[in-house]
């Protein structure tokens, strides 16, 4: 029970948060954070637990988003239907994706997934009649308040993390890990590696697609370069999981929080600290520095990633013991 205490407390805090916090800006950040929890956790199933490092998760995210958008565009259905279908359509895309990538291993798998992700982006750009091409798809958001979106995102995040936890704790989870550790050994012990890799991919694609569908509903606008972006989704999903801890259940959650917080921290110039100091001291240099910091939010995250990989190769959650030992000077014996 003690093991579950922290996540439960966290969940309670998150559930009560909109009652205490009325700021739209803050809720927006929290929704982004929850979306990244979903994306990072689903990437983690395929890569962290099954060892198939995908560089193409934007494909599933984008397909989920486009499912919602296209249902509205062509059938005039509410984009919320996308939340019902987005995940399944992403799985449908995932199956040929797996058929192409899974015979390949290691670096080749990574490259093939990258190429497929990029390929889908190009297809979405070119098929103008169907997807609207670079014009994108625009919908009117259903709710003006951010609170409903917040709860939907929270539900999605909780369901995804919970379902992933269930799967990882059960037999398929052990199969996944055995494939990651040694695929040939797993196969020789009678595990159908192709089947289980596809199961892992399906779970991963499903939740990423759901996150995409929610994104469409929340943001109200998508175009191929936004939702199929290699850098903004495929790579970010990886970095979120890496920073938090690959192959841990809650790692991506921590990573998502760090990523969103870090970027906002930089983007706002340490929450206006520089601006404040600049005004107080009357120094233009500090204000200028603040402006520079605001532009450097991606740079800051990039440096964080390098530092984490160098010193905490298993992420914040994976190397928590190490952090406790070295930073807080808590000995395991004491």
């Amino acid at each position, binding site marked *: 029970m003690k093991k579950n205490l922290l996540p439960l407390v966290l969940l309670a805090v998150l559930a009560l948060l909109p009652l205490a916090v009325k700021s739209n800006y803050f809720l927006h950040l929290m929704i982004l954070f929850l979306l990244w929890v979903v994306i990072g956790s689903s990437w983690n199933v395929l*890569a*962290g637990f099954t*060892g198939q*490092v995908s560089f193409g998760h934007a494909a599933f995210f984008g397909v989920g988003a486009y499912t919602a958008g296209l249902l509205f565009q062509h059938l005039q259905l509410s984009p919320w239907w996308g939340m019902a279908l987005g995940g399944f359509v992403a799985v449908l895309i995932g199956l040929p994706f797996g058929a*192409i990538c899974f*015979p*390949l291993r*290691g*670096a*080749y798998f*990574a*490259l*093939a997934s*990258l*190429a*497929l992700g*990029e*390929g889908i982006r*190009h*297809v979405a*750009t*070119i098929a103008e009649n169907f997807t609207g091409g670079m014009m994108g798809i625009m919908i009117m958001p259903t709710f003006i308040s951010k609170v409903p979106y917040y709860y939907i995102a929270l539900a999605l995040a909780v369901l995804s993390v919970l379902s992933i936890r269930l799967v990882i704790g059960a037999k398929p989870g052990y199969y996944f890990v055995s494939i*990651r550790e040694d695929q040939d050994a797993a196969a020789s012990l009678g595990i159908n590696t192709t089947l289980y890799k596809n199961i892992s991919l399906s779970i991963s694609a499903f939740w990423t697609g759901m996150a995409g569908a929610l994104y469409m509903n929340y943001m109200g606008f998508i175009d191929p370069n936004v939702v199929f972006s*290699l*850098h903004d989704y495929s*790579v970010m999903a*990886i*970095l979120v999981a*890496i920073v938090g801890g*690959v*192959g841990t259940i809650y790692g991506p959650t921590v990573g998502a929080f760090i990523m969103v917080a870090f970027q906002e921290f930089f983007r706002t110039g340490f929450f206006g600290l520089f601006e404040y100091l600049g005004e107080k001291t009357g120094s233009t240099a500090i204000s200028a520095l603040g402006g*520079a910091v605001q*532009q*450097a939010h*991606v*740079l800051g*995250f*990039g*440096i964080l*990633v*390098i530092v984490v*990989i*160098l010193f905490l*190769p*298993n992420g914040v959650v*994976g190397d928590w013991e190490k952090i406790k030992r070295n930073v807080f000077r808590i000995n395991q014996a004491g």
Partner: protein
Amino acid sequence: MDVFLQTVVAGVLKGGLYTLIGIGMTLIMGVMGIINLAHGQLMMLAMYVTFVLNTMGVDPYVSLFVAMPLLFLLGVVIQKFLLNPLIKVETILPENQVLMTVGIGMVLTEIARFVFSSDYKYITTDYSNRTFYLGKISFSVALTIAFGIALVFTAAMFWFLLKTDLGRSIRATAQDKDAATLMGVNTGRITVITFGLGSGLVAAAGCLLAPVYYIFPDIGGPFTAKAFIITILGGLGSTVGAIFGGVTLGLAESLGATYLGMEYEDIVGLTIFILVLLFLPGGFKRLTKV
């Protein structure tokens, strides 16, 4: 027919540059077995070096001699202090080095954006837009020079890998790292040199590309993608393969752009890439064994 020939010529000329990008990648991939996802970003840096020197009145072809050593050094630093330490640490995913290159690429892009802003920069030289004609086929002067220089570099690289001690050590490390170590090759040093060489070569490509292209911070990503397409086409660690892969990609893109439409240029490359992965894993190298 003229259109076809013109397309082929354009494709082959572009292929020369792609070869240069690909050789650097294939060396790194062959020796260390990792994909360098910061490869295009290194090229982008070289382009900015060329740009800065150009504002001081230095010709892009002269800045080749500045950008290449600079990027060689940067490559050495990256390998020595960022990538090699990762070999020793225990991690769940062996792909940590690849992810590190992603981080490096991000940092390089953002530094460039920070210093030069996101605006498109141009280098205009008197030969940027000049062309000459052979029969009815036009040749871009800058691209033809680039092609020539790319050929020279490729030949030099080939000679270096085949004939020199260092080149042999690099090939030995690529074939079997453990065996090379047992034979007395300092493989740690070899990886550092290889990454430097790869960076230097892609820097050359950047300098050659600068006069005919525009420069912006995000240019790295697409070229990283091209680099690994070339590498997979040609086969890991194969110099001849990189030539083949570079020219094939150049041709495919330019044929695709002419006969299918400009927007298909990239998708053609990706399609070929996936077909090769599926039906000819190991790439061109497997056919020739070079």
